[in-house]
């Protein structure tokens, strides 16, 4: 028996599997523990989509969530968004802070804004799509194993230490400036900073640029041309990215791709226990 309007609304939303949570009731942001408890409570009650409103820097949103769930975040999620996540899809309408996608195992993180530093730290799988620019050390130590293949795709530009200690997976930087009014132009900032791919020993960093990258390479990294095989790998991700953020796909072809890979199969093999093996 549905008595009042609110209950009816709630009932209907539940039928659709979606619930809204106000992360700052009366303008006072909830503690991150309380907010995450609320999210877990909603998921326990059978909702498969949670919309969070007025999020203001709460950390660890979506931590360790598993399964086919959806989180939509209006506001600014704090550090470690989607940490240890295994499957859900998180969409952020705005910027995110540092360490988003920390050690995530599977799932999708879509940021309609800027990303902070250390995005995708140690990611083991899943996709991280960021519309605009990101900070330092993005994709540090991401790794792949069999079918687990993390992808970090950045629409704008990155700064220093991109793909530091990378051990697998794929980082793509497009160097576009996707503005709020929908126009897409080439970014005025350099595609990446210095120490590019320093310490990389597996995986690929693909940069859409005609800039000279040789002077910016870190230890153990080398610039390669794009091979057909790599192109086949990156195309579906870029197509999906263009679709999500409404970028005309033809634009991607305006600049060449350069690939950063390790200088050899085991660039640091001799550094530690070379004599023992």
């Amino acid at each position, binding site marked *: 028996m549905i008595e009042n309007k609110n209950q009816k609304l709630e009932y209907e939303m539940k039928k659709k599997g979606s619930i809204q949570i106000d992360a*700052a009731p009366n*303008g006072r*942001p909830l503690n*991150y523990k309380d907010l995450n408890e609320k999210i877990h409570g909603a998921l326990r009650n059978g909702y498969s989509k949670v919309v969070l409103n*007025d999020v*203001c*820097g709460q*950390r660890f949103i979506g931590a360790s969530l598993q399964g086919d769930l959806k989180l939509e975040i209006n*506001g*600014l999620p*704090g*550090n470690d968004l989607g940490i240890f996540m295994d499957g859900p899809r998180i969409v952020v309408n705005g*910027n995110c*802070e*540092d360490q988003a996608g920390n050690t995530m195992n599977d799932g999708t993180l879509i940021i309609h804004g*800027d990303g*902070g*530093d250390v995005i995708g730290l140690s990611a083991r799988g899943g996709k991280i799509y960021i519309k605009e*620019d990101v*900070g*330092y*050390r993005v994709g540090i130590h991401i790794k792949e194993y069999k079918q687990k293949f993390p992808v970090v795709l950045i629409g704008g530009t990155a*700064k*220093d*230490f991109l793909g530091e200690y990378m051990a697998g997976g794929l980082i793509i930087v497009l160097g576009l400036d996707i503005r709020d009014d929908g126009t897409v132009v080439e970014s005025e900032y350099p595609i990446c900073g*210095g120490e590019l791919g320093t310490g990389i020993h597996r995986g690929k960093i693909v940069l859409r640029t005609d800039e000279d990258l040789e*002077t910016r390479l870190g230890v153990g990294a080398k610039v390669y041309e794009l091979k057909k095989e790599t192109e086949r790998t990156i195309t579906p991700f870029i197509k999906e990215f263009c679709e999500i953020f409404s970028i005309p796909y033809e634009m991607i072809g305006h600049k060449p791709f350069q690939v950063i890979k390790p200088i050899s199969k085991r660039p640091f093999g001799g550094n530690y226990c070379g004599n023992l093996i």
Partner: protein
Amino acid sequence: MNWNNYTSLPEKFRNQRVFDGCGISGYINIDGKRDSGDQIIDMLCILSERENGLGAGFAGYGIYPNYKDYYALHFLIDTEECKEKLLHYLDEVGYIIQSEPIPTLAPHNIDNPPITWRVFYEPKKKKSISEDEQVVQLVMHINEKFKGVFVISSGKNMGVFKGNGWSHEIADFYKIKDYKAYMWLAHSRFPTNTPGWWGGAHPFNLLGTSVVHNGEITSYGTNMRYLESFGYKCTLFTDTEVIAYLFDLLIRKHKMPVPIATMALAPPLFSNIETMEQNYQIALKNVRATYRSAMLNGPFSIVVGLTDPKPTLVGLSDRKKLRPLVAAISENDDSLFLSSEEASFKRLKLIEEYNFKNVWHPKSGTAIVARIGEGILRDGLEKPFEKINLKVEGAIRS
């Protein structure tokens, strides 16, 4: 809050380490408008995940317009006896214009809250030594020699309020909301790696220079010995004090422009310098050679308040960007905000419908500088010598 260790850190704690993050915030109203402390409290308290209740502090610039020509000395004092001794000494070496308690709101059940006292002070005129220098020597002398007294700030028309507790507790204790300032700095948590004592909380101040810092200065020993050769005394058992003294040395004593001084503290790597134009190379290599021991090593992001010649807000992170710093500008370009996390700006948006024109991440090792009446001089995204009119004479020092 912890109601002990106001003016010194007991010997038994000096080798203890408590590790945690810090939250820093600050803003400047470029048009000189004075705001109450509400905004800065909101900006800082939203970063509660970055603090551990061991310390917090605020610095307000422009809070004493009626006494703006006198040095506002803020003290933490243990006992009435110590206070009498201190005031007697101040009366001897200079003129006390006004002497009064700093209003506080201590909980009723506390028997021994610190005596918070302020003195508006004017040193005696001397030909051989400037007034600023006299006050610096006075501060160093009191902090070193006076037991039970600690000077927490000594600038003109500004003041530091700090203590050992959570940021919201410190804000309530000192009634930060009642002060009006055109520039605020704030910090939560504690001097890195040091156990809590009141005087050791941020901001660190000397004359008009205040520093809030997130990170740790691993070059502390080198910096300290360098500063001691200029007569500074590092007595606080923490790394951040060297930043305050270095800013004082470089900007007040050596008259360096702010962007060049920050280049001395966080210089580009030699490998980057090699790729620059010849005259930039000469300038930077000479800065690095001259101020070799002033270079700050280790992870840090700092927000600095300066008063000379005009109130200036400076933000700087280490050159590898190991600590966060985010900047924002208000809709009509009249305020610049800096913080550890963008959440501080989001918080202002939530409660006051405050709108920002732009939010951005300054480059590592690149200063962001805003000055009252002049606007944003550097936005932290420039190349090292961009916007600087540089005239280079001579060759590289070896």
